[in-house]
């Protein structure tokens, strides 16, 4: 399952989605809004996505991850809109027969999201608001 959502990410529902009796390992990664950035206090964060392309890129990452590791179930959800400190901005759950593969697959997925999925964030701090310095996207998954 892949989704972009402007509603709170339901981690219990995600864990239910990766339920699979043949999988001995489930890794759940949650990215959350930190309360600080370069010495500044953060009060909120806006996430903006190029929705169609972001979903296509998330799908490509999922396909690639399943190609590289024996993944039985996988869920990737990214938030959009205004998030408060502590809220979950991205969730990835991977179920595999064994833990080594589950950890590696999940790590690959989040690292590749950061390099390829067209999403931008703006932070609100006590010093004002600013777009977070991003990375030039890489065209292909590795």
């Amino acid at each position, binding site marked *: 399952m892949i989704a972009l959502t402007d509603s709170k990410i339901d981690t219990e529902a995600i864990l239910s989605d990766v339920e699979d009796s043949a999988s001995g390992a489930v890794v759940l990664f949650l990215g959350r809004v930190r309360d600080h950035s370069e010495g500044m206090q953060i009060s909120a964060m806006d996430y903006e996505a190029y929705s169609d392309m972001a979903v*296509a890129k998330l799908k490509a990452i999922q396909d690639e991850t399943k190609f590289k590791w024996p993944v039985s179930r996988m869920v990737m959800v990214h938030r959009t809109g205004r998030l408060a400190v502590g809220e979950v901005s991205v969730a990835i759950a991977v179920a595999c027969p064994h833990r080594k593969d589950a950890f590696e697959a999940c790590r690959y997925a989040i690292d590749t999201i950061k390099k390829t999925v067209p999403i*931008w964030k703006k932070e609100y701090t006590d010093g004002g608001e600013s777009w977070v310095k991003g990375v*030039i*996207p890489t065209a292909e998954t590795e």
Partner: protein
Amino acid sequence: MITLKFFGPLRELTKLDEVEIEIQENARVEDLVGLVGEQYPGIRDHLKVVSFSVGNEYAPKGTKLKDGDTVGLLPPISGG
């Protein structure tokens, strides 16, 4: 005619989500930098580090544009 889509700081500075523009025959993605910079001088600095998409794929600068393309002007990304 192509559709240009703006995101993040580019959307904010131009106050536009998207705009339709005429392109020359055989125009390439890289030609948009000059064209857009002329029309929206406020985003010229951002255009130096922008990436492009055509449809849902990243597009190298040399990609030829065709009528009806949807082109994204993508600032450095910061998802996750």
